[in-house]
């Protein structure tokens, strides 16, 4: 009898949902809460091969005066700002253009624009490294020659290497972001445009007063993932300079520095402090961004 009761309870509508979500609770505890907490704990320690020693806020103090970390921080922030500036307005315009009925063979272009996102960073990074080579025979210098410009040492100078990184990023994500905006546009009620046109609105006004505001959820989504991806960028730079070392750290990012200290230099405590700073930056930027866009307010209502 006892057993049967237990079995019934397990099959009841009250217990079943907990059974269903159990894997999440376990994974969440083991692979999220625990590492997140130990990230804070480890960031206050000096971790050697065998020993772990509490050092308080010393790692964070060191970060304040660590020039290399500041370089990485600035590089990552710059990259984030530029990628947002390039990967939101342009894909949005492409999507608006594609959404009208002017473009023929849409499916073909959509598929082709998505293809770069299919390649892993190891492949795309290698291809771009070879195209942005300093030799005159590399693709970019061939292009420069055609434009009557001198050859550049692309990956050895800060601003040209920034161009290389941004080109790689735009190459991979322009198509994806365009698709995001297209699906956002699909959700807009087309009759709004019709009635606005009857009222005599021109295409500029249609875009400004209908498309842009109604596309806002999509824009916020794309902005959020762009900020996160920008701040956490590492492998692109890892591949362009094949291994985390760029001249004068022009390609070093926050996560690159985290990897360098934690894995290459075996200084896990310090690496964790870098990680915590990154998390704080990511959360602060996102809350500011969400606050400015009024998303948080809407949720409260």
């Amino acid at each position: 009898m006892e057993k049967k009761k237990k079995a019934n309870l397990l099959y009841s509508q009250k217990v079943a949902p907990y059974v269903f979500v159990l894997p999440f609770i376990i994974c969440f505890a083991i692979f999220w809460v625990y590492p997140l907490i130990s990230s804070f704990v480890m960031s206050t320690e000096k971790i050697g091969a065998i020993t772990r020693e509490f050092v308080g806020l010393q790692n964070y103090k060191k970060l304040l005066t660590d020039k290399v970390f500041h370089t990485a921080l600035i590089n990552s922030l710059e990259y984030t700002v530029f990628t947002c500036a390039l990967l939101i307005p342009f894909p949005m315009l492409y999507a608006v253009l594609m959404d009208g009925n002017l473009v023929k063979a849409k499916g073909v272009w959509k598929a082709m624009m998505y293809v770069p996102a299919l390649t892993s960073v190891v492949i795309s990074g290698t291809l771009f490294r070879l195209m942005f080579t300093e030799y005159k025979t590399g693709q970019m210098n061939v292009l420069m020659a055609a434009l009557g410009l001198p050859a550049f040492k692309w990956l050895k100078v800060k601003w040209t290497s920034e161009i290389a990184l941004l080109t790689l990023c735009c190459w991979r994500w322009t198509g994806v972001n365009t698709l995001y905006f297209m699906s956002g546009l699909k959700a807009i009620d087309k009759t709004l445009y019709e009635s606005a046109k009857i009222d005599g609105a021109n295409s500029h006004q249609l875009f400004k007063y209908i498309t842009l505001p109604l596309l806002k959820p999509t824009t916020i989504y794309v902005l959020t993932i762009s900020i996160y991806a920008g701040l956490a960028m590492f492998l692109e730079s890892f591949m362009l300079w094949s291994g985390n070392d760029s001249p004068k750290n022009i390609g070093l990012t926050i996560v690159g520095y985290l990897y360098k200290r934690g894995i290459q230099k075996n200084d896990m405590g310090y690496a964790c402090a870098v990680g915590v700073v990154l998390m704080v930056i990511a959360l602060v930027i996102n809350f500011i961004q969400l606050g400015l866009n009024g998303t948080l307010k809407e949720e409260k209502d």
Partner: protein
Amino acid sequence: MANANAINPETGKQYKSVRRSRFIGSIFATAFFALLSAILIYPLFCGFIASFRPGRELIRRGLALNLDSSGMSLNNYKYLFSGNADSIKYWNWFKNSMILTLVTVALTLIVCYFVAYGITMYKFKLQKVLFMLVIATMMVPFEILLMPLYQEMIDINLIDSMWGVILPGLCSASTIFFFHQYMISLPAELLDAGRIDGANEYYISVKIMMPITKPAFSSMAILCAMGAWNNMLWPLMVFRSADKFTLTIGLNTLLTPYGNNYDMLIAGSMLAIVPIMVVFLIFQRYIIDGMTAGAVKG
């Protein structure tokens, strides 16, 4: 654009001048996307053409489009299929990537489906909290957990094993979220119908709900497969022994400064894109559905 649809009240058709300007606009717009697509495909095309030339050339000259057919051969590909030590190594990476991808997709989908089912189909105390927690995991970039997770893998002895790569990503928040979005649009009465017929909760979740969530499974399977196939950062940290390497990390090991492996690197890279490209071409529609589900509703 305002007058683009202007209709001649007498004939009921568009004015001729409007039709003509639309035609010209259409040509320009289509040409624009053709050009954009061509630019985006270009680097891969260059790489593909270069894969028929000796790897030495890549090191000496860098990569640029060179359609000159002299000096092109299938040698790099022949090398990959030659059965020598290098090619055995390459196909081992390929096999490892395949296994890792298949296991990741199968487990992630099953786990995320049931979790989403639990969160979406029932009303219970922790429902809202759990949903918030799912969202919270999306708010912290994975890279931040890199070090502690790495240490944890060492501690629980999952380092250098496939499970060390798979388990931390098993409960993927975006996959759960997508299943959730899909399920809330389905009629909950189906569940009650099943209950009246005497089916238990687990039977309902598998036999009634799973079949109608099939499209969601397709979308997520492909996105998840793409992610697993191309995953690099975490496998780079977890795998240590060369015989366990996946394609991404394996190809990365070929990038030595001396470049004696570039033959294999360029041909191997092109072959590594093939499986995911085939999947993409077959299931294209599902990919776009799955990917954009989060963006519209925010």
